[in-house]
Structures are given as C-alpha cells and as structure tokens.
C-alpha cells in the first residue's frame, strides 16, 4: 500500500532544497574561479594560453552535462579505485561545467570593453595585469552581472540532472517521494513550483540589474 502525500512528504522535498542550493552555490563559486582564469587566458596576448582556454570551453560546451557527470562520477571511481560518493562527483562536474560557461560569458564582457580603453591604460605605463585590474575588469564586471545571474538560474535547473547518479537534491527527492506515494502528478508539479520559487527572484534580479546598468553605466553611449 502506497503512502499518501502529506506534510511529512512535503517537508522531505523542502529539506532537499538546501542540497540543490549548496550544489549550485558551490559550482558557482568554484566555477567562478575557473571562469575568471579562463576569461583572462582567452583574452591574454599569449596564443598558447588562448588555445588552452578555448579548448576547455569547447570541451565543456560541446558535450552534454550528463556525460560530464558520468565521466566525473565513474572517472573518479576508476582513478582512485574506490566507490565515490555522489556529492564530490556532482560538485566537481558542475564546477567544471560552470567554469566553461562563466569563462565564456566573462570573456565576452572583457571583449566588450573597447580597445581604446586598453590602449589608454597601456599608455599610462600600466602593466598587463594592472590594465586588467584597474581598467578592464571593473567595467567588464558591470556588463557581466545580468548574464551571470541568468546563468545562475540555468545552473539551478541543471543541477536536477544530479538526480540520475543518485544525489539527493530536489529532483531526486521528488523521485523518491513519487516512488513512495505513486502520485507523480502531485509530486512533480510541486517540485517544479519549488524550482520556480528559487529561480524566479533571480530572473527578476537579472532584469532589474540589466535596466539599472543600461541607465547608469553609459559605456556603450560613449564609444
């Protein structure tokens, strides 16, 4: 006899939300570091570094995140010859994945800064890292906020794939409750609504930021 879907089952779903958030935040943090490095390498004057960064981006953008997840999960197991927990594997996979996408977003933001800004900084005798730090990155950061928030929304939804290798986040919790209650048409709409509640504020934030930055920055207006 199946359980009915009640408060306990609903609470079980709620308790899975922190894992979805933790996975998303962890991947954003780690991916942010990788992404910054990739973006800088992609725009550096050194061809070999640009190639390496491009290769990384192509690899992770050109393969399904599910395959990346499988390769990390089983790869870690083979590499260390142990049964790996799902958590480090999904965190690593989504970190690498985020690194590629954030790298590409930020590469675009850096390249959106007009060439004369680099030249003006260069002509003040600033070294390449200082040109980046004082002149280019602060401007690129403002441009990149809306697409970065947009990616965060995508990432939160993508983490549902982690359910496939058994990591209990929101989607996996939904599967478990469906198996227990046989009520997919109650459980999954609720799961979807919970995702929506996580993502919608971020989408609103992205839109607001976009308007604000258009209005205040005035970079495009001036070049």
């Amino acid at each position: 006899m199946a359980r009915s879907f009640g408060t306990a089952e609903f609470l079980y779903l709620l308790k899975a939300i922190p894992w979805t958030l933790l996975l998303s935040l962890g991947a954003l943090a780690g991916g942010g570091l990788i992404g910054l490095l990739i973006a800088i390498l992609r725009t550096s004057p050194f061809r070999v570094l640009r190639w390496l960064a491009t290769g990384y981006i192509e690899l992770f953008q050109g393969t399904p995140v599910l395959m990346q997840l499988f390769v990390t999960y089983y790869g870690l197991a083979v590499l260390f010859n142990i049964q790996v927990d799902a958590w480090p594997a999904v965190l690593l996979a989504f970190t690498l994945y985020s690194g590629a996408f954030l790298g590409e977003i930020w590469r675009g933001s850096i390249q959106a800064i007009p060439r004369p800004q680099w030249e003006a900084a260069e002509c003040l005798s600033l070294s390449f890292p200082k040109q980046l730090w004082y002149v280019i990155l602060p401007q690129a950061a403002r441009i990149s906020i809306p697409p970065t928030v947009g990616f965060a929304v995508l990432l939160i939804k993508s983490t549902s794939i982690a359910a496939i290798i058994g990591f209990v986040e929101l989607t996996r919790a939904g599967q478990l409750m469906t198996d227990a209650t046989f009520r997919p048409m109650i459980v999954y709409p609720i799961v979807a609504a919970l995702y929506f509640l996580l993502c919608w504020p971020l989408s609103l934030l992205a839109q607001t930021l976009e308007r604000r930055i258009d209005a205040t920055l005035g970079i495009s207006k001036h070049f």
Partner: protein
Amino acid sequence: MPLLALASISKRFGAHQALDGVSLAVETGEVIAIIGRSGSGKSTLLRCINGLERPDSGTIEFAGKILAPTPRQLKALRREIGIVFQSYNLFPHLSVERNITLGPTAAKGMQLDAARELARRVLRMVDLEDKIAAYPQQLSGGQQQRVAIARALAMEPRLVLFDEITAALDPELIGEVVRVLDRLAQGGMTMLLVTHEMGFARRSADTIVFMHQGRIWEKGPPAKLFGSPRTPELASFIDAILSVDPVVKRCVG
C-alpha cells in the same frame, strides 16, 4: 641632441603603405604640428612613437637611447611620453581624480596623497579643478578632453603626443581645448600634434610637418609653409582647408 629622433620609419597595413621612411627629430621644448589629409600616415606615426604600433623598419631614439619594443622598455617609455587621443578614452567607471591619479600611483608607485595633490595641480592647468569629483559622462566633450590632457600631464612626461584631439568635438567646444594647448606650448612643453587646427598650428607651432602618402612631404616654420608652399600637394591641401573655413583663412592667410 634631439629628445626624439625617428629614422626611416616604415609601416605597412596589408597593401597600404601607411608610413614610408619617415625621419624626424624633435628638440626639447619644440612644438611640432603634423598636418595632412586623412590616410597620410599622421596618426600611425604618433602611434609608432609610443609603441601602440610597431614599425616594420626604422629606428626610434628617445633621449639618446634606441628603443627595442620589449614590454619593459615600452613601459618605461610611456612614463616619458604621454598621449592624448581623439576620443578622450577616459575611464568611465572612475572619477576625474582617479582617472588622473591611476597612472602615477599604479605605474609609478606614487603615494595616493601626493597623487591627489598632483591631480589638483594638473586640473588647474586645464581649468577644471571644480570637476575633480565628477565622472566622465557628466562632462562635455571639451571638458573630457581637458581631463584627458591633465591625465597625460600627471605622468610628468618629457614629450606629449596629441592625436587629433579636437576632431571629435563640437565646434563650440574646440576653443577651450585649443586654449589649453596654446598655454602648454607657451609653457615650454615638448609637443607633437596631429591637428586640423590651423590657427593653433600657425600661432603656437615652431615647426609644421606636412605629410602625404606616408612621407614627410614638406617641413618648416609655419610662416614659410603656409605662406609659400613648395609642392602642389601642400598648396592644394591648404586651399582645401581655406575653402571650407573662412575663420581658418583669417588665421592662416
């Protein structure tokens, strides 16, 4: 010994020979105005001097030292040679003060307090001390360009390059920028300008260089060059300018 000596500088962009064996010496305190039609290589010449473009051949000697285009030498060179661009190129995310103090602090290691004092001083030179806290987009084009001049001066350069710095300005804003140029010239600054301001060139330049097809076609003091051009190319260039602008005609003629 000249401060800057260019010898046989050539530069090609694809099929276009932008510079074709240009040699030029700039003495300390000299003001040289480079004139010529667009595409004659004027801006490319300036950009070669401070390493934004790399000449295909020829040598650039600054203060007696031949430059090799290594990052370290270019960095050192840019403490000595300032440049002001046609499109100002101020940093839009930084205040006027920070635009000016960035070079001295981040590149030359000057203390921030000293740099802020310096910022006041150079802003006074361009009559914009009251705009020290403003952001570039709050200023008119003429004001932005004067801030850009102040920013270049704050590096305390021995030579300043000006690349058509009034060309992007509305006509009524040109005067305020030219006045600053006049003042700098009188103050003994060594200046190399690409300019269409014939009034300024005649008034404040020691030497006029007329460029044509990537070469120095004619060179000499303003009175001589404007008064009796030797080549038909310069004569027709002067005619072309005079026909569009009666004010310039008064200044030049």
